[in-house]
């Protein structure tokens, strides 16, 4: 047998394109007669547009048109929508302004510079109304969306009766995905009802479906190209108003139009992780058994959509606790709509839950690791089902061993090293392990190469590489002879790349397509190849790219069958989805994060010195790209824990740090060596590969591992992310540091 490909650290199949500049992202495409677009965005945060003067802009050199609600061709799908339906911002439909930065016009010119300049010449006057952007000042407007009803298991708010309790409030600021690639689109109407798009998206089929609905043209008339995507982290999970604006503009001028938005517009046009305030209350017995968990969350949304996510989900099933209550409300503000950001709501919720568990451990004087093991949920207490696989305890032990947890002294502020306060912290994370429905086309060529196609997206995890490895194991064909093609709407259906489900969903479809291809080859052999004549299909064995008959020595390679029959290729299309197994088992991935931090006693600066993350994500398909997923999530977690916060000036409803210099995503020097370990045990039920998802759990819980370590180092609990020095600083620590360092001032 050939070497098993699954589990190998295979180099990325698109690595060469990425290191040579050959990978084409949406904005890298050039079309004849291309026009460049620039957006004019609202400078007020609530009100209406009084007038738009485009005279100067239209006179500027190279300008083709300025399009706004005054002259935009109507979007047919907007026509019959219910104005109270809260179904999104309808760009250029009317003069209503809901938030600062909302596009009010799009300027088209024959160069980018001319479009940008002309956009500055558009004069917009507004009727300004009072805006509301401060969540804390608008808590009275909080309401419940019926997607997220209150949840109670056992007795409501049972924590109040427990002998040992924690009742704390945690807050998380608004965070912005900020992928390196700026958002935008190239739109070209080939004919009045045929549209070609080069998009930045996590799902070409989703784009096609949205455009079909809004522009009411047949699906086959919409072509979406998106072969390379420069990061998404959730922001490319929907079609945004800026994309509709470009498509509308292209329709009006009947020329291809390219829009690439600016970094500051990335803060207002393509979603964000909503800021949230959470109250987490725990009740436990004196010996550490949880008796009650109550998790209440309030998060922001836009005036025109109710965005909900899994903020309170983890608290329902993570620990074996008989009494759990969750409540979740939204506050509508004059800002754009949020969207899932890596780890999504679960990452927000995990910060609160895993911080509170840590707080409880100190109150009980039980090791935080031990407390988690003590309350480990052996079965899913929410769904009352067994887990399909769960090796969390193993992950705890492995992580503890690798970080050197046994060196940790239990008392806070008890460890020092090189003049720094030393802290160790840990946390756990979990996210649903999903499997959706996907279709894969598999074509075997007469030269023995295999082409697989599906309309999946790849925002970076290495989808094509993993699919090649999976196909190689099913077919026995060498990886070098297999090509997996994605990012084209013309390919068979695949869902969006989101929710850590791509390998599970698409890998299953690849497996099924490859098996169907083998059956088709077997059929050909039985009909036409003498040695296989009249063989029962079930007696045919597939090995190393060849067909064998049980108990007989003759073999025939796949390509020989094609060559003998003079077939240029054999094609199958297979659709794959989950079955009854999902009703019998609760399916989750789990992660454990350990950190060691240094905190400067005088300045409160936190430096993470060492990270150990362990993933229980089933079978690892590619050890190299899986590690990259994990360290990537951890870097996102460092940002969440220590640096990221979009700061709004509520007087104007504008972000004051809407750029990479002031909104601090971690840079290389912010990140320490990171050790990643995989349990790498097959989930027997989820899918043929036994792989669960990894993208989200890489980040979920990480921020708590840092805040818990900061508490251990300093004795100061920071419940308000990010953990900036001002929140860690304390007078006592500073005075002591001065004394120890013989500082006089």
């Amino acid at each position, binding site marked *: 047998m050939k070497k098993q490909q699954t589990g190998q650290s295979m180099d990325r199949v698109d690595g060469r394109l990425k290191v*040579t500049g050959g990978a084409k992202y949406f904005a890298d495409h050039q079309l004849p007669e291309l026009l460049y677009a620039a957006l004019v965005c609202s400078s007020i945060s609530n009100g209406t547009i009084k007038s738009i003067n485009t005279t100067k802009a239209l006179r500027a050199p190279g300008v083709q048109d300025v399009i706004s609600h005054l002259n935009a061709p109507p979007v047919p799908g907007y026509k019959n929508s219910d104005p109270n339906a809260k179904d999104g911002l309808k760009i250029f439909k009317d003069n209503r302004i809901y938030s600062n930065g909302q596009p009010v016009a799009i300027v088209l010119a024959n160069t980018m510079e001319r479009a940008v300049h002309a956009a500055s010449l558009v004069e917009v006057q507004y009727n300004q109304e009072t805006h509301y952007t401060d969540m804390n000042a608008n808590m009275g407007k909080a309401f419940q969306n019926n997607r997220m009803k209150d949840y109670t298991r056992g007795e409501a708010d049972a924590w109040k009766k427990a002998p040992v309790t924690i009742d704390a409030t945690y807050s998380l600021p608004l965070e912005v995905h900020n*992928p390196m690639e700026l958002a935008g689109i190239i739109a070209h109407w080939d004919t009045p009802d045929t549209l070609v798009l080069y998009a930045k998206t996590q799902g070409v089929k989703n784009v096609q479906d949205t455009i079909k609905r809004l522009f009411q043209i047949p699906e086959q008339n919409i072509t979406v190209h998106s072969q390379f995507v420069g990061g998404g*982290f959730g922001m490319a999970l929907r079609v945004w108003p800026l994309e509709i604006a470009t498509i509308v503009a292209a329709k009006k001028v009947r020329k291809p139009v390219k829009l690439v938005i600016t970094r500051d517009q990335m803060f207002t046009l393509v979603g964000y992780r909503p800021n949230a305030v959470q109250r987490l209350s725990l009740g436990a017995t004196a010996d550490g058994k949880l008796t009650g968990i109550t998790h209440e969350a309030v998060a922001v949304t836009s005036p025109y959509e109710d965005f909900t996510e899994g903020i309170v989900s983890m608290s329902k099933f993570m620990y074996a606790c008989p009494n759990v209550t969750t409540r979740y409300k939204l506050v509508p503000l004059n800002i754009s709509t949020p969207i899932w950001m890596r780890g999504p709501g679960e990452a927000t919720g995990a910060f609160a839950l895993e911080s509170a568990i840590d707080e409880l451990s100190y109150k009980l004087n039980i090791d935080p690791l031990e407390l988690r093991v003590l309350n480990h949920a052996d079965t899913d207490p929410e769904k009352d089902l067994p887990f399909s696989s769960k090796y969390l305890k193993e992950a705890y032990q492995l992580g503890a061993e690798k970080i050197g947890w046994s060196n940790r002294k239990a008392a806070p502020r008890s460890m020092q090293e090189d003049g720094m306060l030393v802290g160790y912290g840990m946390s756990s994370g979990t996210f649903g392990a999903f499997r959706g429905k996907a279709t894969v086309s598999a074509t075997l060529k007469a030269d023995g190469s295999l082409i697989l196609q599906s309309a999946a997206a790849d925002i970076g995890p290495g989808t094509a590489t993993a699919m090649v490895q999976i196909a190689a194991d099913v077919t026995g064909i060498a990886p070098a002879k297999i090509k997996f093609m994605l990012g084209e709407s013309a390919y068979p259906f695949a869902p969006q790349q989101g929710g850590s489900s791509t390998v599970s969903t698409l890998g299953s479809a690849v497996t099924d397509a490859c098996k169907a291809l083998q059956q088709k080859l077997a059929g050909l052999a039985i009909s036409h190849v003498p040695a296989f004549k009249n063989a029962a299909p079930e007696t045919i064995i597939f090995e190393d790219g060849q067909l064998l008959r049980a108990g007989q020595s003759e073999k025939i390679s796949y390509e020989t069958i094609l060559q003998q029959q003079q077939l240029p290729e054999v094609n199958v299309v297979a659709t794959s989805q989950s079955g009854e197994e999902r009703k019998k088992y609760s399916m989750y991935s789990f992660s454990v994060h350990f950190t060691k931090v240094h905190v400067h006693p005088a300045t409160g600066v936190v430096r993470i010195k060492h990270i150990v993350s362990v993933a229980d994500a089933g079978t690892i398909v590619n050890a190299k790209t899986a590690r990259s997923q994990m*360290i990537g999530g951890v870097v996102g977690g460092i940002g969440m824990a220590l640096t990221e916060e979009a700061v709004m000036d509520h007087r104007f409803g504008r972000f004051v740090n809407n750029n990479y210099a002031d909104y601090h995503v971690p*840079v*290389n020097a912010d990140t320490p060596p990171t050790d990643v370990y995989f349990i790498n045990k097959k989930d027997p039920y989820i899918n043929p590969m036994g792989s669960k998802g990894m993208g989200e759990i890489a980040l979920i819980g990480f921020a708590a591992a840092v805040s818990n370590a900061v508490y251990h180092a300093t004795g100061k609990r920071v419940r308000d992310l990010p953990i900036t020095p001002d929140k860690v600083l304390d007078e006592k620590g500073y005075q002591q540091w001065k004394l120890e360092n013989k500082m006089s001032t």
Partner: protein
Amino acid sequence: MPQENDQQHYPHRKEKHEARRDFLKQSSAMMALALTPPLVIKAAQHDEAIAGIFEKMPVSMEINGKKIEVSVEPRVTLLDLLREQLNLTGTKKGCDHGQCGACTVHVNGHRINSCLTLAVMQEGKKITTIEGLANGEQLHPVQEAFIKHDGFQCGYCTPGQIMSAVACIREGHAGSPEEIREFMSGNICRCGAYDNIVHAITEVKQGGKTV
């Protein structure tokens, strides 16, 4: 000093200075226009051809070993010239403010943010972009190392990271992982491949190959 080199390498540079003087003459024509009746100005504003002459300057440079001569508006950045006019789209725009490093290229051997430099400032300069780093089919050692160590996920920051990494080694700033982390901090990777990038650079540095 760079000017001396430029004179040596670009004897035709003088001609370009003369071209600039021509431009100044044209600018005088613009002054004259300002004094002409508004109706004429209005007509001129609508005339693309006239605007094109007024607003563009000739510039020549060597990009990836190839001499190019173009006429650009003075406000066009080197990044936008590469991407939008020369179809060298490997160099990426991540912020347009010199804050992310995605647009890093080499100018006369030094790494710079091409979004923060104007194309007209590059007269006579030698520019290397990601497309010019490999020797034909033979990848540069840093490109090889990035593949081996998976120094990327989405790949968008990668051209900038690699150009920066090559310069980082040449500058002598790749002596330790800590030093690499410091001197590679001008290149943001939102996918968070930093640890792998450090491994890739360390391996090339320790391999001792000339980069």
